[in-house]
């Protein structure tokens, strides 16, 4: 009797598992929202890349490989696989989900100074587009997607500005700046984009540090730093590539933090801090070279001393 009850219990549990398995295909259609949002912003980035005249040659993102083969002129972007329409047919100017999300988030940015990086701002943004405020439920509750979208947009704007400046230099209409001045201007330009949202930015920074947001935010940071160095003219192919980007990422992050605390007019203290850090970084390169040469001389001296010591003690006799 008890055994039969146990068997039915096991069978019942097994049956429940089978039911769950059957349910799985339904849920798999909707991947976790954060990675989808990241892919969304990545797709946005890719589509905005297509609108550029020349795609930048070196790009640390993985999808750069696909860039090289695309035509320079703007084309309607290939719609990514859509999950809403199962029929397989497309209507003309049918907006994809990602495009819709992009529009909502862009509109939501206007309301961020008032409501912060919250679902409330997204709801207001959706409403301003004439959509229902329930559209905010498409996104994460803590506003991560909004922040990532904003960061991506800022990076795109920065790349655009750097490209324009490069064109001017190539045409001879502007002076080519030295590396440290160039980097200073680039970081300042990028940080100035935060000024309208500076009140709520500290919260945004802390949201970006949540475990699920770290991969995308780190990737955005590295790609921004790579862009800056690329336009500054870095062509290194050795370990310097890594050290330079790491150093600039450090400078950017610390300057951003200083900016949060800065209350001076037009953030003068921040820009002075930035200047000092960049000078430190430049000097570090020189010091590293000197240390290396001193280290080499020291090693040579030590080896000579070791051999001499061997000779002095008579350990050279049995050769």
């Amino acid at each position, binding site marked *: 009797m008890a055994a039969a009850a146990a068997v039915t219990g096991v069978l019942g549990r097994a049956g429940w598992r089978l039911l769950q398995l059957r349910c799985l295909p339904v849920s798999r259609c909707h991947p976790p929202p954060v990675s989808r949002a990241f892919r969304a912003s990545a797709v946005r980035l890719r589509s905005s890349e297509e609108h550029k005249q020349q795609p930048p040659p070196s790009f640390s993102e993985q999808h750069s490989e696909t860039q090289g083969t695309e035509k320079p002129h703007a084309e309607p972007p290939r719609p990514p696989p859509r999950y809403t329409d199962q029929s397989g047919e497309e209507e003309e100017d049918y907006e994809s989900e990602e495009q819709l999300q992009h529009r909502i988030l862009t509109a939501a940015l206007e309301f961020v100074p008032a409501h912060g990086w919250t679902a409330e701002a997204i709801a207001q943004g959706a409403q301003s587009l004439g959509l229902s405020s329930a559209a905010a439920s498409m996104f994460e509750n803590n506003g991560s997607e909004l922040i990532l979208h904003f960061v991506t947009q800022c990076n795109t704007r920065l790349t655009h500005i750097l490209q324009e400046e490069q064109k001017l230099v190539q045409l001879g209409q502007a002076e080519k700046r030295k590396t440290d001045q160039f980097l200073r201007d680039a970081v300042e330009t990028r940080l100035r984009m935060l000024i309208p949202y500076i009140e709520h930015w500290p919260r945004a920074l802390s949201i970006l540090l949540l475990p699920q947001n770290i991969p995308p935010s780190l990737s955005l940071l590295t790609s921004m730093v790579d862009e800056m160095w690329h336009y500054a003219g870095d062509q290194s192919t050795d370990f310097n590539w890594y050290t330079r980007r790491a150093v600039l990422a450090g400078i950017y992050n610390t300057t951003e933090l200083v900016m949060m605390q800065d209350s001076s007019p037009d953030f003068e203290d921040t820009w002075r801090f930035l200047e000092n850090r960049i000078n430190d970084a430049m000097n570090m390169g020189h010091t590293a070279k000197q240390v290396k040469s001193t280290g080499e001389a020291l090693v040579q001296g030590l*080896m000579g*001393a070791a051999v001499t010591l061997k000779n002095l003690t008579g350990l050279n006799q049995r050769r």
Partner: protein
Amino acid sequence: MAVRLAVRGCGVLHAAARRSSLVSCRRWSGNSADTVYDVVVSGGGMVGAAMACALGHDIHFHDKKILLLEAGPKKVLEKLPDTYSNRVSAVSPGSATLLSSFGAWDHICSLRYRAFRRMQVWDGCSEALIMFDKDNLDDMGYIVENDVIMHALTEQLEAVSDRVTVLYRSKAVGYSWPGPFSVADSSPWVHITLGDGSNLQTTLLIGADGHNSGVRQAAGIQNVSWNYDQSAVVATLHLSEATENNVAWQRFLPSGPIALLPLSDTLSSLVWSTSHDHAAQLVSMGEEEFVDAVNSAFWSDANHSDFIGSASGLLQYALALLKPTRAPARQLPPSVARVDARSRVLFPLGLGHAAEYVRPRLALVGDAAHRVHPLAGQGVNMGFGDVSSLLRHLSAAAFDGKDLGSLSHLTCYETDRQRHNTALLAATDLLKRLYSTGAAPLVLLRTWGLQVTSAVSPLKEQIVAFASK
């Protein structure tokens, strides 16, 4: 015990691996017509010529063939010039013994030299002074012009021309050593290629080619070297009045030591080590200005400070209480009246130390192995010391019938000389650095140190004995 053997074993393997990887292993199946010399000395300066001469006069080398390679022309000194040369060396009694062992010293005595009996060394920044002399005021050393030494050595080389061949104007351009193991059809001797294309073979190559030694570089021996930020200015000076002139004077200024070495009753040789800029100025300034500069360097007490003066006086008083002997009578250096025209020359200074003096079939002597600051006057004496030590070892090896290029006796030479030379190099470098500053703490340290050394006579005697070897 086992540990020591293991260490030695490792040392052997390591050394063999190192040697084989560093030494160039060009195999040479040379003609049998090439004579195989027993010893080739590359470089015919004072030390190289002394080496060749010493080997030539050694009785165990009576049947051996020795070759001396000199890149310059033969310098013949028919008549001793009236003007003294500005390059002189302070030859120690030990070096004089070596030179007299093969008869060169007699030639020097017949030409000219000056013995000095006392050396006064004092500081430019304080009153501290130390006086070195030997018991009974024996000769402490001899000031001999380099040309005179070279002439004496050349004469003695000609005396043994049946054993020693000297090739002038022949510069060696390439050396190749045999590999660590013998291969059929390969020659086990060292091959030397000369500038004119001829080849030589030898069982032992002695490198005596100066501080930029080509032999040392070809062998890949590591050389620990650095340049001092000083150049030495040499000149021949006329004293304002004739004196007995048997004292060598040296004063340590913060810019570098200045030394006056006696040449005759009225002449002295100047060696002034100072910064590159100052040295260039001294060489190019007018004669009157130069004489004034020399005199003020010896006499002026512009760098003295009251604090140091009182501190040194304090220690002097304390020492006088402990050891009531009379303080050394302070002598005043002679003043200079004129400088010989065109006798002012400068040359840069540096330190060099070869980590190894020997390799299989290779030995380094003289400046090729060590280069030192002239403040102690020991450069050529260390070279002559190398010569006498190597001669002793090679002579014993030749008597035993050993292969002259074998490492067994060469390493004995290396240990023997490195013990002496490394200590002297380190001491000279330390003194140079200690006396290159005018900073009060270091001046105080060295003032007191000098006073204590001066008071402790056994220490002084040890120093004199070490320098006379």
